[in-house]
């Protein structure tokens, strides 16, 4: 738990008037409000800090206490006595902005000095959806290939979710009602999970299509033959045409990635042949190649 410089957070001097505080707060609230900064975790953190700073600096009593004891916040007993006295003697209706119902997340520093944070002016009277939670889930390509269940721990609660096959890297899904508790009887928020899918060492994905490189020996490339390759759905036999050129692409229909939420539908797998030139040739082999080159 660290000391928070509320003046610095609002970008004002210690001599700032209540109007200066209000002006600075409004300006920063508009800049960092979560509604105006979707997917920006830093903005949310900043917004909580400025809300907290405003809660203290716009209240003459809290500001006085903060100015007097702020840096010595560890003297909790003294503060606590004063806090209890203040709770009995004042009932301030402070105006603070609600940021998608997350305004309650004040710092430990705040709570040690002033007790539990208050709700915002409006949210005390009205029903609000709970805060939305955001989480990131890391999968590998093979996990994303099949529909499977996974248990997540979000805010100390275990949630078992079904991840449909074909989920995309960076895609976000919503789990309704698994966010923060609603305010004043409002509905619970939602949980948003963004998937981060790691690259596969041999198979690349683009949407529903897969791309892989298969190494062919020179003899199979020249004379043709049959090879077995690995795909995400198992091994597949492929016929190689005689005189196959390096870089030839072959499309394997339906051997790609599953289409998200469209069971039984798959993209294609594109195989690129890379021909390996033999090394460590024996004298006999060299002779045969020379013979070939002269024929």
């Amino acid at each position: 738990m660290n000391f928070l410089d509320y003046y610095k957070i609002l970008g004002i001097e210690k001599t700032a008037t209540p109007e200066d505080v209000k002006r600075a707060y409004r300006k920063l609230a508009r800049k960092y409000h979560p509604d105006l900064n979707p997917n920006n975790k830093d903005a949310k953190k900043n917004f909580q800090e400025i809300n907290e700073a405003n809660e203290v600096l716009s209240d003459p009593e809290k500001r006085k206490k903060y100015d007097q004891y702020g840096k010595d916040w560890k003297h909790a007993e003294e503060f606590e006595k004063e806090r209890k006295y203040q709770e009995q003697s004042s009932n301030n209706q402070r105006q603070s902005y609600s940021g998608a119902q997350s305004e309650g997340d004040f710092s430990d520093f705040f709570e040690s000095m002033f007790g539990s944070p208050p709700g915002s002016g409006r949210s005390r009277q009205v029903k609000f959806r709970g805060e939305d939670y955001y989480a990131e889930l890391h999968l590998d390509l093979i996990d994303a290939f099949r529909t499977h269940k996974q248990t997540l721990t979000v805010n100390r609660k275990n949630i078992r979710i079904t991840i449909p096959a074909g989920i995309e890297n960076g895609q976000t899904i919503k789990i309704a009602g698994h966010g923060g508790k609603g305010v004043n009887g409002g509905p619970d928020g939602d949980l948003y999970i963004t998937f981060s899918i790691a690259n596969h060492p041999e198979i690349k994905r683009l949407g529903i299509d897969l791309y892989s490189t298969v190494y062919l020996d020179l003899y199979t490339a020249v004379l043709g033959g049959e090879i077995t390759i690995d795909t995400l759905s198992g091994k597949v036999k492929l016929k190689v045409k005689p005189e196959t050129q390096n870089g030839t692409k072959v499309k394997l229909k339906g051997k790609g990635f599953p289409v998200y939420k469209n069971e039984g539908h798959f993209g294609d797998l594109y195989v690129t042949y890379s021909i390996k030139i033999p090394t460590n040739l024996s004298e006999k082999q060299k002779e045969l190649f020379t013979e070939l080159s002269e024929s």
Partner: protein
Amino acid sequence: MSTMQTEYLISVDEFCANHNIEISFISSLEQTGLIEITTIKKTGFINAEQLQQLEKFIRLYYDLEINLEGIETITHLLQRMNSMHDEILMLRNRLRLYESEF
């Protein structure tokens, strides 16, 4: 074969009473096309799917004191931001095709 879908509607009067806001604000949002109101037997209803967006408009208007024109502009810009975000994601995923090849 067509399937019937259940729509969850909340009356505008009830919503405004619960959120402590004026009905005229909801009407203004409808006039600017930011939300849709369904009228059944002369009573206005809001589709529950719009609730999240509507609560956001309320926060912008009442908490941040942004006027309707500002809300319209912000909504438009956020939509653009979202589509650009999707495009960046698509391009990043495409880029992964070429990563680790060099």
